[in-house]
Structures are given as C-alpha cells and as structure tokens.
C-alpha cells in the first residue's frame, strides 16, 4: 500500500514540476538585453522598462523591443529612451510608435472593431468548447448503465473462488 502511495506522490510531484515549468515560462519573459543607459530619474527608467516590454519589434515579430537584438529594435529602444529623456510620457511614446508603425507595434492592441476577435476570440472558442463538453457529458449520463445484481455478484465470486 505504501509503495502505491509513494508512486502516486512521485507522479504528483512530476506533474507539479511540469506545471511549474510551464507557468514560469509564461510569466517570466526572457532576460532583457543589457544596455548601459543612464536615466536622469527612476520614473523614467521604470517607464522605459515597461515600454520596451510592451512594444513589438517589427522585424522579429514575436519579440518585444526588450528581447530583440535586431538593429531596428536597438534604434527603437534608443528612440524610446530619447523621447522619455525629453519629457515624454508613456502614452506619448506609445502614440509616437503607433503613428509610425500602427497598432501592431503594441503587444496589447486597443479594443476596436478590427481587434474584437483578437480580444474575445479565445473566450468565445473556450465557451463553445465548454458547451459542447457539457452537452456530450449529459448525453453520456442518459445512456443506460450496466447494473450488477447481488445474485450475479455472488455467482461471480463463487466461480472465481473455485
């Protein structure tokens, strides 16, 4: 019995570890490239870090400016830095990028008619999946299940014991 229980806990640990790894891959983005930039105040540095995480590198489209080493990403990081140093707010920097590169430059695009499916598509598909799942499991329940009477069970036992 203990052996079985131990095996179960090992299984559980394995699953937990796997889930942990997947979660950490989701939440912790790759280490940003280190560039030595001097900021004149902390708020600017904070803004810069947030911005380069949220702005997309258009050359290597699945990376943000922080993760990308492409030349354009370097230039856009520099531009972000200079705009902040000139006193631009976060929103102003985003607006600067959007007027040049379009909404696509933002990893969190604004909610518009054209981005509606992007925002709510996954939820809609998930809901459909849940509805289908519920429908199917209900139908399964309605199917007659095999019932074993006491008599049958005793008969089976006596057969097995012989």
């Amino acid at each position, binding site marked *: 019995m203990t052996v079985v229980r131990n095996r179960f806990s090992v299984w559980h640990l394995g699953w937990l570890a796997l889930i942990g790894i997947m979660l950490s891959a989701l939440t912790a983005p790759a280490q940003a490239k280190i560039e030595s930039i001097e900021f004149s105040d902390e708020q600017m540095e904070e803004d810069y870090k947030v911005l380069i995480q949220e702005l997309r590198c258009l*050359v290597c489209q699945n990376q943000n400016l922080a993760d990308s080493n492409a*030349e354009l990403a370097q*230039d856009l990081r520099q531009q972000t830095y200079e705009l902040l140093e000139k006193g631009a707010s976060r929103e102003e920097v985003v607006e600067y990028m959007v007027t*040049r590169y*379009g909404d696509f430059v933002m990893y969190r695009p604004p909610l518009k008619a054209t981005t509606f499916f992007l925002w709510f598509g996954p939820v809609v598909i998930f809901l459909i999946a849940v509805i289908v799942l519920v*429908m199917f499991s209900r*139908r399964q329940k309605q199917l007659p299940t095999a019932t074993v009477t006491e008599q049958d069970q005793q008969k089976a036992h006596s057969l097995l014991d012989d």
Partner: protein
Amino acid sequence: MSRFIVPMGFILLIILLGIGLTLDPREVPSPFIDKPAPDFNLPVLGEADKTLSPKDMLGQVWLFNIWATWCNACRAEHETLVALSKMGAVPIVGLNYKDENEMAQRWLQQLGNPYVVNAVDKDGRVGIDWGVYGAPETFIIDKKGIIRHKHIGPVYPQVIQETILPLVKKLQGEQG
C-alpha cells in the same frame, strides 16, 4: 442535430486556420496610407552640400524607395528598379538607409542608378518617421504629397505591372 455539431465545428476551425495561412504576417498595414508624407531634410547622396525634402517633389507622382547596400532583398529588386526608371513613367527617389556613402555610390555606379536623387539617412531617423521596419520598402506618393501605397519587400516586375504602374497612372490623372 447535435451529431452535426462536432463536424461543423471542425470545418469552421479548418476554415479559420486556412484563412490564417493565407495572410502574410510580415505585411504590417501601414498607418501612413492616405496621410501626408512625413517631412525631412536630408543631405543628397554624392552632393553633400545639397539637401532633399519631400516638398521638393510636390506636384508630381513619385516613388520613394528605401534601400541599403547591406540589404540583400534590395539587390534582388535593383534590376527591376533600373528597368522601371528607363521606362520614364515615374521618378524614383531613394532613401539610402543606414548605409555607408561610399559603398552606396559604388553600388549605383556598378549596378546602374534608377534614382533621380538619393537622400542619405545615416542614423535611420527618417526611416523610423516613415515607419520603415525592413528595407526594401517602396512608397507611392501623389502630387499633393500624400502617401497612397506602400509596398513591403522587393519590387518585382509583376508588382510593377500589376500594382505600381496602374496606380501611378491613376494618380497622375488626378488634380495636383
């Protein structure tokens, strides 16, 4: 009824993913279409004392081609651009993007020069202002200085025939 739901859902999913496959994610829609061309004032390639501004081109339809000698796809489209310039249908202005002047000039001498004039964007600032994210890119600008079309990637003869020349012709017919 419900037995059709799963195959139906499957077919819908295939259609959805199929549409996804036909789209080119590299073709980012440009926010500049039907907007005024961003202004600049840059030195002219080979004539450092002169400068070029998009305003100099007001009154005519022109192409604005972003290129560099380090850009392989630019090399691929170069012959097509030279051929287009020989047709004399539309002036091509170049933006030599983050390049070395000497190398750019040598390239034009060796491979032919399709440009009426080239502006030098050494640090790529003007490129950013024009939303350039990968050379080559080609803009079509109308007589009023409004950007009407952007082609991303190399210009091939097919693009010239099917897209650029018809649009240029249409724009040249518009009031300046």
